């Protein structure tokens, strides 16, 4: 059941990415090109998504718990450590080079462009490396 609900929500998310134009890295790169062929569309995607989520979360989080599971998994941290600076800095450079962040890269996967087929496996490898390195650090700290 959770698989099917997640499949439906993934379809909604992916359709949102496709309709908003974000599956096209050229649109993203043009948003990031303030001094060239600027296309403000991405700001409207972010704006629409943040407004709906802001209102929706406030309604949903009035509940004691989600429909499935005993509690909401909300990030509790609010400190600024080196990881929350270094990670986004590395991510932003890659985003500026390729025009893909993780969601749109997955949405573009099935469209089969050569650049996407190179990008997505590398992205998955990078994600895995970061997870393993983070785990390794946590274990070192615990010892």
């Amino acid at each position, binding site marked *: 059941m959770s698989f099917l609900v997640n499949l439906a929500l993934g379809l909604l998310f992916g359709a949102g990415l496709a309709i908003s134009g974000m599956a096209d890295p050229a649109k993203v790169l043009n948003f*990031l090109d303030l001094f060239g062929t600027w296309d403000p569309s991405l700001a409207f995607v972010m704006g629409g998504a943040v407004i709906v989520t802001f209102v929706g979360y406030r309604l949903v989080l009035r509940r004691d718990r989600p429909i499935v599971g005993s509690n909401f998994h909300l990030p509790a941290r609010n400190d600024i450590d080196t990881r929350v600076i270094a990670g986004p800095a590395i991510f932003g450079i890659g985003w500026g080079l390729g025009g893909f962040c993780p969601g749109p890269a997955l949405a573009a996967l099935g469209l089969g462009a050569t650049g996407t087929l190179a990008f997505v496996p590398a992205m998955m490898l990078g994600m895995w490396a970061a997870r393993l390195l983070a785990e390794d650090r946590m274990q070192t700290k615990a010892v």
Partner: protein
Amino acid sequence: MTEFTPYASLFGGAMIGLSAVLLMLWEGRIAGISGIAGRLMPPYRDGALLSRIGFVIGIVAAPLLIGWYSGNAIAQTVSSNVPLMILAGLLVGFGSVWGNGCTSGHGVCGLARLSTRSLVATGVFMTAAFATVFLVRHMIGA
């Protein structure tokens, strides 16, 4: 040049937001794609792997279904510079997981929660991306 699409982009963005809200309602999780995709690989810490596989299949399938239904493939222009795209993919994958979130987890869900960490993260990745495109397009001239 790409065409400025305020209405389609606002509407598509609202769909992304709705998906994030419903995921929170259903199983109490943040719709962060780097978190979801990054946990497709081991180690597996919770029982949510099947859910994550479902969500990712949905994202991959949606543009194909739209293309099939409308009869027009989704238009896109992707760099065919393979070494560049591999480098970009490694940086995006590593950086987004190292920083605990990407455009969706920090940029959408985090900002909607008014999280300071997400505001900082979003400011940093936006600045880095603007600077990178400026360097590539206007300094190097690629």
